[in-house]
């Protein structure tokens, strides 16, 4: 995950409300087709779920030892049309300690070229991913 242009995550320094880098991407028919195939749902209309727009924005600014998705909320507003460019705006929505483990909550919204709101996603990431193996490796 480390990129030369990103900074090492300092959990204590992260501030709630901090903006994350905005970015644009073209949602292609190939992305939609692959997404539908991966989830075995030929009617799926929100391939933006696998783009992980919020955490993608997070990792444009920070690098860390990795993380694990602990909770995710996804709002559907308008299914995106393949071939259109989407703009993602993201920010730090929250951070907290739970049972001694650090979490960061990222949030993002995406909008298409016509200004239609496409979706909104909120993700709670456990920033100590080794906890997963400690609990579940059998």
């Amino acid at each position, binding site marked *: 995950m480390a990129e030369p242009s990103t900074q090492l995550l300092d959990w204590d320094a992260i501030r709630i409300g901090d903006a994350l880098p905005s970015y644009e*991407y073209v949602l292609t028919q190939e*992305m939609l087709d*692959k*997404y539908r*195939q*991966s*989830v*075995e*749902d030929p*009617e*799926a*209309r*929100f*391939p933006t*779920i*696998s*783009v*992980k727009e919020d955490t*993608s924005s997070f990792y444009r600014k920070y690098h860390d*030892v*990795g993380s*694990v*998705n*602990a*909770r*995710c*909320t*996804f*709002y*559907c*507003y*308008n*299914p995106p049309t393949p071939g259109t460019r989407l703009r993602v705006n993201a920010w730090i929505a929250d951070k907290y300690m739970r049972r001694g483990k650090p979490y960061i909550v990222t949030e993002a919204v995406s909008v298409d070229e016509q200004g239609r709101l496409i979706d909104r996603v909120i993700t709670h990431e456990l920033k100590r*991913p*080794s906890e*997963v*193996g*400690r609990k*579940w*490796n059998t």
Partner: protein
Amino acid sequence: MEHVRTYEVDQEIPSLCKHMKQERITLFEQSGGYMVPTIHTDVEASKKITGLDVPMASGRMSLSFATECLRRFFGEDVYNRSGVVDLRFVRPVRHGDTVTVGGKILSVVQEPNGRRVTIELSIKNQNGDTTAAGQGSAVVPSGFFPQE
């Protein structure tokens, strides 16, 4: 009146079952543009970062399954415009697992343009263990309900 829909508290929604394969777990990552080895696609990355001996599927795959389950229940005309799913991931899902999404109606609440129908959701694996739990909802327009 063929478009009239009924929603009652405790009503169960049709379940949805998925068999997990590593090829599709990997394809899910690739569909989103993630081509480098990750905890979802690579054994070594998984061991190094999470300590798990085998990769686990992205929680967003379970989110996608819940989305499909809710869309089928509400209809795409309703769900794709107002649907929400909120899941906590409580147990890893891996290649070889079979997961089943199920739920029942928790509440039906009047909103300005319709009624928000909220579903209590759970996803269980082949052993009956819960892998994810939470809620989903959609706003069903007033026109879909019988006139009072």
